[in-house]
């Protein structure tokens, strides 16, 4: 965390892979400055190809969303809400009845810019991993979820099975096209005792890498700290109560998860299997019986 200098878990060498320690990311938008160094570091280290240069018009975010060639994505949220104890005044914005903040032209115009670096959540119960028919997706020693590029045959089933819309199939003509890609948690770096590239470069330690139990404690502490200093809507995003049973890359968020494009109650799709297969078996037996009856009575 901030102030720890080279003692911070973001800078130290480690032996988590060898020791089989569960690790994670804690990403904190309240200190993020939106520099996108994590996006760049990720692309560089992992040699991820570019995925188009489009101007989105959505604040300063031209990346859009996570995908096969975007493993870190810095979101730029513009909200008409107060940030902490921020002092606000009228900004002279056009009168707009739709927005309660500006229903009165003389009112104060609270405004905040929130940056959050999004990443694969490395779910405790991962939809992508469960659904993969080739066994290309595995759980590593540090509890992260890894796609083995040489095994994946690009069936695309993980794409619709991730409750967070993270993993995607890489289209032609990009290098390694046809396979499914997502954040590797820099497994290669971790194996040699290095910290994931994004956490390593993050200048404000908005991204913290470390032992999962440590991070969870830090996260809870940080929320309390922020609450006390006026960020009343600070909360942790870690869906432990749903069938996903928690995420290893969890976030602190200001406001509602929906604004960050995060599902409020993500569910792993395997929970739907029981009812769907029951229906399938019933239909299979029903069709057999219907056919036999048709032949019995109309032969």
């Amino acid at each position: 965390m901030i102030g720890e200098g080279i003692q911070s878990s973001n800078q130290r060498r480690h032996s988590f892979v060898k020791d089989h320690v569960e690790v994670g990311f804690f990403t904190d938008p309240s200190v993020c400055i939106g520099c996108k160094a994590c996006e760049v570091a990720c692309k560089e280290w992992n040699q991820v190809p570019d995925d188009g240069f489009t101007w989105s018009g959505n604040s300063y975010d031209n990346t859009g969303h996570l995908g096969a060639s975007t493993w870190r994505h810095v979101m730029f949220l513009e909200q008409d809400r107060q940030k902490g104890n921020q002092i606000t005044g009228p900004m002279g914005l056009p009168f707009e009845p739709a927005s309660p903040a500006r229903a009165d032209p003389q009112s104060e115009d609270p405004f905040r810019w929130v940056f959050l670096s999004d990443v694969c959540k490395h779910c405790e119960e991962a939809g992508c991993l469960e659904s993969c028919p080739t066994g290309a997706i595995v759980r590593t020693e540090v509890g992260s979820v890894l796609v083995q590029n040489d095994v994946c045959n690009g069936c695309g089933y993980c794409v619709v099975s991730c409750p967070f819309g993270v993993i995607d199939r890489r289209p032609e003509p990009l290098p390694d096209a046809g396979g499914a890609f997502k954040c590797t948690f820099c497994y290669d770096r971790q194996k040699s005792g290095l910290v994931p590239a994004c956490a390593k470069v993050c200048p404000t330690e908005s991204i913290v890498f470390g032992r999962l139990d440590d991070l969870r404690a830090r996260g809870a502490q940080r929320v309390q700290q922020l609450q006390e200093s006026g960020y009343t809507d600070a909360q942790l995003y870690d869906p432990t109560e749903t069938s996903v049973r928690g995420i290893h890359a969890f976030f602190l968020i200001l406001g509602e998860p929906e604004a960050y494009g995060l599902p409020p109650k993500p569910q792993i799709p395997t929970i739907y299997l029981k009812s769907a297969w029951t229906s399938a078996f019933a239909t299979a037996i029903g069709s057999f019986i219907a056919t036999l009856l048709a032949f019995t009575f109309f032969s």
Partner: protein
Amino acid sequence: MTNDQLSEKRLDQLREQAWKDGVVTDRGVDVAGGPIPRKPGYYGEPVVRPPVWTWEIGLYFFIGGIGGMSAVIASAAILFHHLDLIRAAMWLAGIATILSPILLIMDLGRPRLFLNMLRVFKHQSAMSMGAWILTGFGTCTAPGLIAVELHFHHVFGGTMDQLVRIAAGIFVFGSAFFGTLLATYTGVLIGATAIPAWHLHRVLLPIHFGTAGLGSAAAWLELIGHRIPALNAIGYYAAAVESALLIWLTFNKHGAADRAIHEHGSGWLIRIGEILNGPLALILRLFGLVPFAAISFLIGSLVSRFGWIAVGKVSGTDPEAVFASQRL
């Protein structure tokens, strides 16, 4: 208007365009900051990812359904000694056995690695189960078809012919077993995903896909000349079930969460498909227009398979559908 107001107005226009198209391509565009999101979600970006599957998968659902269920008809035909029907139905199953894997492999991002599908057996992955079901189906259907033909043409005599007959029976029943699963598992495949409009209808989907498969197999056999009362009865059954499903789908609405089924082009595909293989096929059959009923049913089930894939694409790109499904 002052200059300031003009540029404000231009800014608003640009924001609107950014909202609508996701991207502004005008020359000299330089917007300071973007619009404050007015819709729930992050600038309308999808929350889950839409399927990457293309036309091959819709066609595979259709052909796998026909092939699988025609093996069921073949097994019933064995029990009731309709020798011609056994052959025709097994040929249908045999053709599906060849086409289905081709379509599946064509849809892979890396077709040359298709055998990796058989690296593991994962009951919690409907895709893995499907790969094994298709393998089982092929393993029974190909020798089954060969045995049926050997027996029909009396290639062998005496005891050998008896053995061939028994083998044919065993393989055809095996093929029927895997066939029913082949026609229905596809509903599980898309039902057990994160796409809201799919998983909300995970019980309806296998019933729809399985029944459409059975009806299509019967319809196809009727069209190639097997106009027997038993197939007509199956046609009635399938069209009746499909009509019931249409009613179910109409009343079982989940608002924004499954609006892809009721709105947009995808909604139209579903509706047209369901009307063609439900009420219309039923009415045509009641009037004795069997070939027309068969054609209507076949087109209907083909259209609705593509409809369900389209629903997945629309629903998967709709952030509000995801939020709504989780607030239910």
